C-alpha cells in the first residue's frame, strides 16, 4: 500500500512555537456501564513529543483519548497534564488546554470556516468578536485556507474541513492535541496534506496523541508508538522497536496484516 510518508521528526527543526505539556496516564480504566473498554493503561508522553496509538478498531484507542479530555469520565486511575491530575478539576477549563480533532471533523455546518475557528475564542475565552475573527483568519492562513475563510464546511473538501478543524483546535492554544483517526474519512489524495500538517505541529513543539491507521505516519513522525488491543496496551516503544522488532505475537500478527 502506498502510505504517505511525511517528514522525519529530526530533520529541519523549526522554531518551537508551541509549548506542549507532558501527559501521563496512570492505570487508566474506563467503562461504558458495566463493560470495561480500557483496562489499566499507563503511558507517559514527554512535552513536545508525538505518540501514535495503533491497533484494531474496538481496542479502546478512541476511548483513551476521550478519557484524557474527559468527554468520557474515567472509571479509575489518573491522568496528569503538566504534572497535575485532571480529575477533580473543572472539565470545561481542562478542555481549553487540550485540543481534539475528530474523524468526521464535526465542524459547525451553519458557520463559515472562520466562524468555526472564532466561535470558541469569543464564547469561551471571551475575546472580542472582531479580534476572534482576525485570529481565526490568521490560523486558517497557517493551514493554507486563507482564501476559503468565508466558505461553509459543505463547500470545502474533506481535507480542507479537517484543516479547519485543526485550526479551530489550535486557536485555543492547547498544550496537548488529540487526533482521533483524523485522516480516516479523507480522500486518499488528501491524507498526506493533513498528515504533513500534523507532523509540522509536532516539529514545532506540540505534544500530540494520535490515534491512526497510517502506519507510515506512525513510523516516520512518532517518538513513541503504542499498540493496543482489547482495551490494553500490548506493546509500547519507539517506532523502530515496534515496527522492526515487534516482541508480542499479537503485534507481529497485526503488522503482518496491515503492512
Amino acid at each position, binding site marked *: 500500500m502506498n502510505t*504517505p*510518508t*511525511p*517528514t522525519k521528526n529530526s*530533520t*529541519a527543526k523549526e522554531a518551537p512555537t508551541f509549548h506542549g505539556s507532558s501527559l501521563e496516564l496512570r492505570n487508566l480504566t474506563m467503562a461504558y456501564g458495566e463493560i470495561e473498554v480500557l483496562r489499566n493503561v499507563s503511558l507517559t508522553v514527554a512535552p513536545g513529543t508525538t505518540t501514535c496509538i495503533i491497533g484494531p478498531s474496538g481496542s479502546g484507542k478512541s476511548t483513551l483519548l476521550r478519557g484524557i*479530555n474527559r*468527554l468520557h469520565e474515567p472509571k479509575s486511575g489518573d491522568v496528569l497534564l503538566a504534572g497535575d491530575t485532571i480529575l477533580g478539576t473543572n*472539565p*470545561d*477549563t*481542562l*478542555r*481549553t488546554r*487540550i*485540543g*481534539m480533532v*475528530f474523524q*468526521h471533523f*464535526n*465542524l*459547525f*455546518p*451553519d458557520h463559515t470556516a472562520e466562524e468555526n475557528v472564532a*466561535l*470558541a475564542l469569543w*464564547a*469561551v475565552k471571551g475575546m472580542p468578536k472582531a479580534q476572534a475573527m482576525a485570529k481565526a483568519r490568521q490560523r486558517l*492562513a*497557517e*493551514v*493554507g*485556507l*486563507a482564501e476559503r475563510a468565508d466558505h461553509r464546511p*459543505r*463547500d470545502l*473538501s474533506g*481535507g*480542507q474541513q479537517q484543516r479547519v*478543524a485543526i485550526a*479551530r*483546535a489550535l486557536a*485555543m492554544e492547547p498544550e496537548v492535541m488529540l487526533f482521533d483517526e483524523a485522516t480516516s474519512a479523507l*480522500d486518499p*489524495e*488528501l491524507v*498526506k*496534506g493533513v498528515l*504533513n*500538517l500534523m507532523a*509540522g*505541529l509536532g516539529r*514545532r513543539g506540540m505534544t500530540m496523541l494520535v490515534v491512526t491507521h497510517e502506519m507510515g505516519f506512525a513510523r516516520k513522525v512518532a517518538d513513541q508508538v503504542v499498540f493496543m488491543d482489547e482495551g490494553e496496551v500490548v506493546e509500547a516503544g519507539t517506532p523502530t522497536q515496534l515496527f522492526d522488532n515487534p516482541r508480542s505475537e499479537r503485534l507481529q500478527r497485526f503488522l503482518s496484516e496491515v503492512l
Partner: protein
Amino acid sequence: MDWLNTIIRTFFDFGAMAEVLPQLLAVGLLNTLIISIAATVLGTMLGMMVAVMGISPSKWLRVPARIYTDLFRGLPAILTILLIGQGFARLSQSVFGPSPYPLGIIALSLIASAYIGEIFRAGILSVDKGQGEACRALGMSYAKSMALVVVPQGVRRVLPALVNQFIAIVKDSSLVYFLGLLVSERELFRVGQDAAVLSGNLSPLVAAGVFYLVITVPLTHLVNHFDNKFRTGRRRPAPPTSGLNEVKDLEAASPLTTGSNT
C-alpha cells in the same frame, strides 16, 4: 332542481355573505390572527423551555417536562380551554380585566407549547452528537454548546413543522369562543356563527371557512416549498475539480507543511 336551490340558499347566499364580510374582515380575521399569533409566540417560547428541559441530563428537569407534555397533548383542546378559561376567570379578572380573551390565548399557548416542545425536542435530538462533542472539546459549557450550536441547528430543521403547528393553532383559535367573548373580540368562527343565526342560513359560516383557508392553504404550500429548499440546501454550484488543485494549494500555502516528502 329544487334541492340545488336549497343548497345554494343554505351555503352560498352571497347576499348574506356580503353583509357579514366587513365584520369578518375587521373583527373576525383580526382577532383570529391576534389570538393565533400571540398563542404561537408564547407557545414557541414555552415550547423551547419544555424541549430543553426534556433533553436535560437532569431528571429533575426531564420528568416535569415529560408530564407537562403528556398532559397538554393528551387532553382535548376544548377541555383545556374551558378548564383554564373558567377555572382562572377570577384570577384573570384582577390581572387582565373582565375579558376572557387573554385566558383563551394562554390556554391555546399551553396546548401549543406541548406540541412545539416535542417538535423542538425531536429537532434538537436529530443534530449529530459530534456537534455537541466538538463544542465540549473546545471547552464550551453544556449550556453554551446548546445555545450557540446545537439548538440553532435543530430549530432550523423543524421550521416546516412549526408552520404546521401555527396552522393547527389558527384552527384551534375558534374554540376560544366557548369562553364567551365580547362583540369586538369575536374571532372568525364566532362572527360567522352569529351571522348565521341571524340570517337563518349557513353562508356566513362558509365565508368564515373561506377566510380560514385563505390563511392556512398558502402557508401549507409555503412550508412545502421551503421544506424542499431546506432539504436540497443552499449550495454554491461548483464545476468538477481535480484533487490536484488541493494538493497544490497545500504545498504552496502552508508554512506548516514545508519540507520534502519522500
